């Protein structure tokens, strides 16, 4: 299930449309993840406030989406492009990789909410494949 040339084009075109909302997308996706999948809160026990739209959630949402934006730019070689991020997740953060799928799902939900006409089934499949590829690249260094 690797990214075809068409997938990459679809992702880049859609991302160009939505990237200016990157921070809002990240904040909403992270907020939803923490509410809908409460087990994900275990990674953020060091935050004072885990409620939707709180300061640490908004800030971290922006960080995550900056990573996604970086991945779009490096879409032709995610494995080497995201190498240091992979090392971070593998050795320092040690986020169980099942959570990448959870966050990806919530990113897709937010994209559907914010861009209902642009987030067609064709864009959806390309973005789903892209986020899965990003997750794979992030998991590279785990073992």
């Amino acid at each position, binding site marked *: 299930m690797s990214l075809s040339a068409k997938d990459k084009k679809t992702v880049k075109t859609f991302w160009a449309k939505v990237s200016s909302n990157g921070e809002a997308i990240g904040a909403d996706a992270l907020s939803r993840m923490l*509410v*809908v999948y409460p087990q994900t809160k275990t990674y953020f026990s060091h935050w004072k406030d885990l409620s939707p739209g709180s300061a640490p959630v908004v800030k971290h949402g922006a960080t995550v989406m900056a990573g996604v934006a970086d991945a779009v730019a490096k879409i032709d070689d995610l494995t080497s492009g995201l190498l240091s991020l992979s090392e971070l997740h593998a050795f320092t953060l040690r986020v169980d990789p099942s959570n990448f799928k959870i966050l990806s799902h919530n990113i897709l*939900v*937010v994209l559907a*909410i914010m861009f209902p006409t642009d987030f067609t*089934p*064709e864009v959806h*499949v390309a973005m789903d494949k892209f986020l899965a590829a990003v997750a794979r690249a992030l998991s590279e260094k785990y073992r």
Partner: protein
Amino acid sequence: MVEWTEQERSIITSIFSNLDYDDVGPKALVRCLIVYPWTQRYFASFGNLYNADAIKTNPNIQAHGTRVLHGLDRAVKNMDNIKGTYAELSVLHSEKLHVDPDNFKLLADCLTIVIAAKMGSGFTPEMQATFQKFLAVVVSALGRQYH
């Protein structure tokens, strides 16, 4: 036994009462067949599913999407016994239709996306949590009679 709070019950009935089943059902099924193309394996007799446009305009898919949504309606009306309500449907999906139960989650995710697109920011994190809890119960009930 699945426990539902009053708030959860009212969220589910409110979401479904504002839905056009003839619109949302087909949209969710179409999206599932495009986003997860291997699910097309169950619809070989439905005619042309050759590309996204064919899937979107296929009348058999439209009809079936509506049927699926009306099937979900039965769970909405029997939230305290979704397992029992779906026992026969579960047998059907296992014995007659031979559907891999992992597919139920794929369709559920597509339905969530379609509802999110329709409701916009009105689909709050709390509503999303309740809706996904409801769909998880439905998915579990549909897989229950497999052996």
